[in-house]
């Protein structure tokens, strides 16, 4: 079972690749900083579903749940636990 840290590391690589910006920390607010716009957000969610084999439950989420690698990692862990 992949740990939260492992998922964060994998996500940091994925996000950096998708937005063409090196993301240094899992806590950085990707939306507030403008790193991730609407296109990048949906692209990332589709990629997460493909790469991590989870379904992102959009109806249960708020924008704050998607704003950083750390938050996204928590969503993945939660969904894998279901």
């Amino acid at each position: 079972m992949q740990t939260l840290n492992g998922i964060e590391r994998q996500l940091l690589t994925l996000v950096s690749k998708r937005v063409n910006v090196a993301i240094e920390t899992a806590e950085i607010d990707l939306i507030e900083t403008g790193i991730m716009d609407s296109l990048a957000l949906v692209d990332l969610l589709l990629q997460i579903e493909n790469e991590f084999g989870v379904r992102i439950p959009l109806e249960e989420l708020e924008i704050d749940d998607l704003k950083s690698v750390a938050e996204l990692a928590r969503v993945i862990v939660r969904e894998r636990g279901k």
Partner: protein
Amino acid sequence: MVVPGSGEDGEGRVAFPFVRTQAESMERAGWTVVYGVVDDRTSPSGVLRNAKKLQALTRRVQPSLIHAQYGSMTAALAAFVARSLPLVVSFCGDDLLGTPIATVKWKLRARAARLLGLLAAERAAAIVVKSQNLFETLPRRLRRRAIVLPNGVDTEWFRPLDHRACRLALGWDPEAKVVLFHPSRGEDRWRKNPALAQAAVEIVRRREPRVSLIMISDVTREEVRLMLNAADCLLVTSLQEGSPNMVKEAMACNLPVVSVPCGDVPLRLAHTRQGALCPYDSEALAHALSEVLRTCERSNGREQIYLQGLTASDIAVRLGEIYQQVLDREPAAAVGV
């Protein structure tokens, strides 16, 4: 369930006429259509709100399949909510081709939008592209699931009407020679290449001062119909197109079309008399315009629309076959996440 790109009119109906035309003809062919409109594609919070809205709608209506009527964000959101439902994605033009002349920022956004649409199309059971040039821009692995199917024309609405009566209704000079041009807005305006259209008409005007170039812009569907019947020619100078609806609507009204070779226009005009296909050259376009304006004869465009199988009902039959094939292959699973 149909997911159009964006836009509702004041009464909550889908504002894109071509989407409405297609949906209405699908309903006449026996399908039930529910719209899931995406009204914000640009802000992350708006996108999340739209995704939730579409998801709730999907749960409520339990469609047999979802058809995204545009690539980019629209296709991505549809892919997200489709889950185990069969997904059909339509690409219309700039969602695959981008915008030819644009700022760097816009170009980057267009590239990202294209990739997002293609990513969504990976989940699609069928892909519809409006013209052959769009088909050829698809990655090879996606072409196997793709079919070229232009939008159909509502031939009951777009039909030949009395030229003089339409001019009167619009308040146009009955003696003027009128060339129509369909511009676009924002960064997309350059795609329509208005400078070439203006240059061509300017050349014609040197010999024939009564020529007017009128823009089909900010008008109702009723006004579009009147304009296509009141004008003498439609001029198309676009740098890129898919299958421009305006050309087919003009043909359905027997309005001659003078065009550069963009999108599927050469195919549409191949056997259409009156009008011409010209290179991207103002002199050549002016010469063709002069010929059309000299005789002011109507074209045989409407007959060609029927012969080419481009009425809305023809296209509805073909789209219905695509839906049925998808459903036979991937029967809708239970709706839900």
